């Protein structure tokens, strides 16, 4: 297969990327249409265009199975476009088949991406699609199982008088004549109202090459404005040796123009003439995007480049503070310099914001994937449920987006499989027959809040406890567990409430993996549930991982950075008697009627230097997930923006991340500060 071809690699990448995007759009349209129980003309056109483009680019990459399947789907929507009234006949089966086709494409793309491409077998889907096509054609052409051949034959016979006929010869030995012919047709689409060719559908059959070489490729078209435009386009096309106009069909054009115009597809009119078929296709997809307003106009950038850019901006931020707080400048009065530095600071801040925003993607497409899961699982399990999404336009960093797809998918599957009851059961319980799984996202400033909620059976604390006991993962007496703690049990490794392994859940991937995946991007998850009413999972993820506003504090020679968001206040202690010392040596302090433990970084991390005298240092009160506490350090060094760098993987062994240090950061003077993670600081 052509995947071995090195030169094809980048083309392949573009193909996969573009096709993936189009498939996502296709799924979106299908789901919307299925819900609305009808397909608008515009959507039929969109689907037609999407499949047409996939067909073309797949043929160009010589992925024949993809191309022929896309062709079959395209055929159906071509028929529907001609006669939308036929839609009702085949409505249900069409959706399933097109979904199947879309899944097939996705599988093929995945296997292409993995680098070991084995062409899949789509003949079953193609056959059923053709069957549907025959049903649509119904009385018109009941025997037309083989559409391509038929159209090819008929095209020759009934050429209306107003059609121009042009015979084109390609350069000798240019290769892939059929694909070139197809590309030519795509280019001509923009300047023709009607377009067909002999042979028809040249891209579908590589054997047509010989025919095209021998007899030429005949384009039959009705020009939009004048035949000259068409000829110009042919002249500009690549690899054309010669062409001749067989008939120019000029006479009746004027009279029929208005009639024909109403039939012309709106898409063909919109797209401007563009050099190659892929670009033309993309332009069309974009045109449809603008009209639908779902996606912004996008350009695709390699993610590693973005990562590099992000790194570079990080370096600039560091370099900037290296200049502005240069020790050589200490004690000097430099008004103009300070002004310039402030200007520079403003610009780097802006630059940083923009680079961050480039990496942000809306959660919409992730949410749409979940839509599919709810639909498919509902059908398979015989359950009725709908997914209600909210806040799909919330933007998150691309890495975070990628990291939460699997956890979300797992949680939605869980909800569908375990939580939502069968329709009869739901009616018996007095719930609406249709279950609801809701997926919402919200930006709360520094964090993204995602909730996955269902109105299903809810968690049963007693059952969970019994199960945990049976699995031997309880660490204290049963009665000592609060409800919240019991719910958290399901996120422990080795806990799975369902005994049966089904197709969807229980593949050995449990909530513990969900939790782990989320923690990798700094997220947390909490559960609320009421038996019989439903369960709500709440996920909190920091907006971005790369740059944090932090307060630098010193302990002896060491510098630590505490994220500003975690700090509640800092204060000096004037009198040692404010501190209460426990029998075990641990210290506490009472602030505004609440008692907070005190952790001395000096003792926690065995730092030899630094002050031991409480009145000399400073207390920093921080909020962590579990509760608040106070950190004791020598002094505050000031507020800085720091670029979070992970610890070298060489140090993985020491698991610093789970012991209060989320990473490190290079400061302006080249020294390194350790970034404190208040949530895991007190783990030991």
């Amino acid at each position, binding site marked *: 297969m052509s995947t071995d071809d090195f030169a094809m690699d980048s083309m392949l990448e573009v193909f996969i990327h573009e096709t993936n995007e189009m498939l996502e759009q296709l799924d979106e349209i299908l789901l919307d249409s299925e819900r609305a129980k009808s397909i608008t003309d515009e959507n039929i056109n969109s689907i037609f265009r999407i499949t047409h483009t996939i067909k073309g680019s797949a043929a160009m990459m010589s992925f024949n199975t993809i191309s022929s399947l896309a062709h079959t789907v395209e055929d159906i929507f071509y028929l529907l476009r001609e006669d939308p009234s036929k839609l009702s006949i085949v409505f249900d089966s069409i959706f399933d088949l097109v979904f199947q086709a879309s899944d097939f494409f996705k599988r093929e793309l995945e296997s292409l991406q993995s680098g070991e491409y084995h062409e899949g077998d789509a003949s079953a889907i193609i056959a059923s699609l053709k069957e549907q096509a025959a049903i649509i054609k119904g009385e018109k052409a009941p025997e037309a199982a083989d559409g391509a051949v038929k159209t090819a034959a008929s095209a020759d016979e009934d050429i209306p008088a107003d059609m121009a006929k042009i015979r084109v010869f390609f350069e000798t030995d240019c290769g892939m004549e059929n694909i070139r012919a197809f590309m030519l047709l795509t280019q001509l689409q923009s300047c023709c109202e009607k377009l067909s060719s002999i042979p028809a559908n040249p891209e579908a059959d590589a054997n047509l090459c010989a025919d095209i070489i021998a007899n030429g490729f005949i384009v039959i078209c009705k020009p939009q404005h004048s035949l000259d435009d068409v000829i110009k386009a042919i002249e500009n096309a690549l690899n054309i040796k010669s062409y001749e106009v067989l008939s120019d069909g000029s006479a009746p054009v004027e009279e029929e123009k208005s009639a024909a115009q109403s039939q012309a597809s709106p898409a063909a009119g919109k797209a401007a003439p563009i050099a190659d078929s892929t670009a033309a296709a993309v332009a069309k997809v974009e045109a449809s995007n603008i009209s639908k307003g779902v996606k912004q106009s996008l350009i695709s950038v390699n993610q590693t480049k973005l990562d590099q850019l992000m790194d570079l901006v990080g370096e600039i931020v560091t370099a900037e503070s290296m200049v502005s707080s240069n020790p050589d400048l200490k004690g000097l009065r430099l008004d103009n310099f300070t002004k310039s530095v402030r200007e520079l600071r403003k610009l780097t801040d802006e630059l940083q914001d923009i680079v961050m925003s480039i990496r942000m993607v809306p959660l919409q497409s992730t949410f749409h994937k979940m839509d599919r899961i709810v639909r498919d699982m509902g059908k398979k399990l015989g359950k009725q449920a709908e997914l209600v999404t909210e806040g799909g336009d919330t933007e998150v960093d691309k890495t975070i987006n990628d990291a939460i797809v699997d956890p979300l998918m797992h949680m939605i599957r869980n909800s569908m499989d375990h939580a939502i009851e069968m329709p009869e059961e739901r009616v018996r319980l007095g719930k609406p027959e249709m279950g609801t799984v809701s997926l919402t996202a919200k930006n709360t400033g520094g964090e993204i809040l995602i909730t996955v909620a269902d109105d299903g059976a809810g968690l049963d604390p007693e059952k969970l406890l019994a199960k945990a006991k049976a699995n031997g993962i309880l660490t204290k007496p049963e009665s000592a567990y609060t409800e919240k703690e019991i719910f958290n049990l399901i996120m422990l490794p080795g806990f799975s409430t369902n005994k049966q392994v089904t197709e969807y859940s229980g593949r050995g991937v449990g909530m513990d993996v969900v939790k782990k995946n989320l923690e990798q991007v700094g997220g947390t998850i909490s559960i609320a549930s009421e038996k019989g009413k439903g369960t709500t999972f709440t996920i909190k993820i920091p907006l971005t991982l790369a740059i944090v506003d932090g307060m630098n504090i010193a302990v002896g020679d060491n510098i630590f950075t505490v994220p500003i968001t975690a700090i509640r206040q800092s204060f000096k202690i004037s009198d040692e008697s404010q501190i209460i010392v426990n029998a075990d040596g641990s210290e506490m302090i009472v602030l505004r009627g609440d008692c907070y433990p005190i952790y001395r970084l000096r003792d926690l991390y065995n730092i030899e230097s630094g002050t031991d005298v409480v009145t000399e240092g400073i207390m920093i009160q921080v909020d962590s997930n579990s509760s608040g506490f106070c950190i004791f350090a020598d002094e505050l060094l000031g507020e800085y923006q720091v670029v979070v760098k992970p610890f*070298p993987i060489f*140090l*993985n062994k020491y698991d610093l991340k789970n*012991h209060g240090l989320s990473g490190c950061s*290079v400061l302006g003077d080249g*020294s390194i500060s350790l970034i404190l993670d208040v949530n895991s600081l007190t783990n030991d």
Partner: protein
Amino acid sequence: MANTETTANSVSIDGLTDRYLLFKIDDANYGLPLSLAIEIITIQSITKLPRVASYVKGIVNLRGKVIPVLDVRAKLGLPEHEYDDKTCIIVLDIHDMHVGLIVDMVSEVASALPEQLMPPPKNDKAATYIASVFQKDDKIILNLDCEDFFKDDLEQTRV
């Protein structure tokens, strides 16, 4: 991981094979395959890390890159002493990771053909982490076995 020491029967490809970077710990001469060494930097301020093994001295900032540094003396179980102006950090590339090694001083680069290398004495406590031994002028050079030297630390990185 291709080990350059063992592929040395061919003519040196990039001028690095069969060459060793020599450094000193006390009076003993040690060697490292030159192909592993990226650069040598003078000792600089090291940020200490909590909860790590005693021979992991911390992390340093090498032009924006954060790399861990290990004290060879401590790793070999020798008594540590104050770093002075001869103390160097040799930055190595091991399994695509950068690691700094703190040594007393770096002396020179020496060539040794594979046939000049002798196996280290067996069952000797002093031979820990030693891959081979060779003689240069009147000195005995102990070649550090980097795989073995970092074994404890590398285990966790291959997940």
